[in-house]
């Protein structure tokens, strides 16, 4: 690899570290590479900025962001938490389990970790502390469980990965269900043990009538994930169509059924969602300019050659990539990291015979863990602010949960069949 490429990568790292917006860092380095190293007309970058956003597949990001915002603004989130609580709240550590389960429910509608931390964590941490749960434990569980937001589909990170890797989005979504369930079970078992050890008193088991009443109250909220996944996997909708239908359904439920949102709130929700979606999608545009430079210089292929010359085992490769992604996840958000790194890793996957969908899920989990990895994980700061604690306190609180998630990540790394089981069963993937 020549010095020129290294200079461009060093420039990218410098720009990213300088706190300039990520999409501009990608745009500037990509443009400098294209114009000064490849020697092409600078007008090409305008063409790339235009064409990169002229894609129908991106609609799914915009509409799932909108759907998540409608839920947060209305009362769907509150109803999901109530349901989770009535189902597992009576077990030892039940409220903590309910928090984990609620993150799973929320993840099945929204696609973002930060949205899950804010929506569920902001509500559950005070509730746990009020119910005499240890503060450090409460902060730990509700900082780390929101990783389910990006693992359980729909996941914005997976949507963007599929766009780069050309994997079938609906099949890629399926890879997240079993790992998400494993995380819910593992974190719940840990909570059960910890709370038993602490001698926490159990809540009274709800009667069948109480359970039924809550389920009835939450019916419309619970039907939303059924509509999304039932629609996609019955073949009724594509993922894009499911996102559109989910938005209409969420508006209908919040305005007409729950009456927790007024018609005049629609504008604010739509505008704030458009801005959030713009901040994500514009990184796609910046990454496309940088990607154009990578393609012109055939850099992914060159990196692949260097890596293959030095690593022969796919397992060693995966382990090294896991460590690298965990490290990168500490500093970079999941969207930027997915868009920057996927084109670089893709040529390596075929060399090592690693499935692209398996890798997509590992990448998502890795970078999701990065959200709660000290010292710079965003989730740490959000929950720290909720309880008015510093980063050292929150970092200690998340450690046991991070170890559980890293153990699950290793299990999934070396046992791809768990990840690919559902795509194989539903779509006959890889057969």
């Amino acid at each position, binding site marked *: 690899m020549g010095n020129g490429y290294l200079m461009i990568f060093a420039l990218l790292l410098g720009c990213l570290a300088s706190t300039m917006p990520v999409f501009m860092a990608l745009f500037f380095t990509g443009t400098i590479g294209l114009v000064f190293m490849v020697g092409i007309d600078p007008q090409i970058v305008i*063409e790339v900025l235009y064409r990169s956003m*002229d894609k129908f597949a991106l*609609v799914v990001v915009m509409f799932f962001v909108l759907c998540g915002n409608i839920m947060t603004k209305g009362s769907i989130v509150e109803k999901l938490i109530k349901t989770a609580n009535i189902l597992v709240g009576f077990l030892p550590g039940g409220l903590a389990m309910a928090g984990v389960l609620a993150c799973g429910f929320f993840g099945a509608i929204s696609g973002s970790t930060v949205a899950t931390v804010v929506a569920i964590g902001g509500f559950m941490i005070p509730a746990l502390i009020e119910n005499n749960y240890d503060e450090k434990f409460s902060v730990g569980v509700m900082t780390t469980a929101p990783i389910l937001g990006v693992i359980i589909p729909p996941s914005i990170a997976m949507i963007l990965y599929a766009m780069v890797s050309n994997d079938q989005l609906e099949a890629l979504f399926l890879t997240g269900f079993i790992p998400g369930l494993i995380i819910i079970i593992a974190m719940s078992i840990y909570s059960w043990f910890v709370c038993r050890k602490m001698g926490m008193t159990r809540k009274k088991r709800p009667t069948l009538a109480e359970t039924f009443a809550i389920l009835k109250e939450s019916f419309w909220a619970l039907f939303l994930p059924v509509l999304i996944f039932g629609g996609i996997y019955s073949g009724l909708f594509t993922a894009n169509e499911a996102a559109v239908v989910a938005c209409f359904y969420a508006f209908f439920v919040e305005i007409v059924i729950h009456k927790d949102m007024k018609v005049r709130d629609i504008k604010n929700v*739509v505008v704030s969602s*458009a801005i959030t979606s*713009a901040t994500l999608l514009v990184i796609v545009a910046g990454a496309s300019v940088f990607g154009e430079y990578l393609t012109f210089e055939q850099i992914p292929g060159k990196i692949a050659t260097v890596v293959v010359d030095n690593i022969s085992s796919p397992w060693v490769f995966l382990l090294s990539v896991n460590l690298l992604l965990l490290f990168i996840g500490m500093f970079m958000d999941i969207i930027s990291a997915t868009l920057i790194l996927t084109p670089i890793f893709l040529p390596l996957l075929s060399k090592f015979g690693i499935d692209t969908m398996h890798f997509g899920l590992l990448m998502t989990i890795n970078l999701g863990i990065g959200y709660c990895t000290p010292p710079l994980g965003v989730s740490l700061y959000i929950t720290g602010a909720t309880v008015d604690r510093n980063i050292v306190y929150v970092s200690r609180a998340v450690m046991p949960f991070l170890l559980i998630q890293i153990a699950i990540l290793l299990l999934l790394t070396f046992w791809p069949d768990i990840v690919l089981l559902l795509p194989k069963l539903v779509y006959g993937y890889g057969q």
Partner: protein
Amino acid sequence: MLKAVFRKIDRVFLFLEEWALFAAVMVALFTAMANVILRKATNDYSLYWSDEVVRKVIFFSTYIGCIAAIRSRALIRIDALPQMLPVLKKPLTLFSHIAVLVFSAVMVYLGGQMTLMMYSDEYALTATLRLPEWIFYAVLPLMGVMMFVRTLIMIYEDWYGVNDITGGQ
């Protein structure tokens, strides 16, 4: 005086951004939904132009949304360095603002050139709606101008330690 001008500009921009984004997203939402209903209800009929409308809305709302994101400081950035070394926060913020100004200028210059090129090409039309392509390319220089002005307002607020122009949003 300058503050009053900035405040006025901020309000006008805010009005334009909010209504443009709201209208664009609602058009995309209703068009996409109408297409889903038509396809399911009639089994063979769909709005042939809906795909293009949605794609153009994504393009438009992404770049216009970026201008609004400057105001709310919502553009995604990696702020690891100022968190580790708080002393660097101010110079890095200024550097970041300058980077946005440079980006805006590049958009005005290159985007403007491209728009004029498309304007002079009478065959540069969108595939289904047959709308002139230059209308969409013009979003980029427009974004450049608005982003430039917005960033000047943010620099003013940061420099004087005030947030009463944008209301600290």
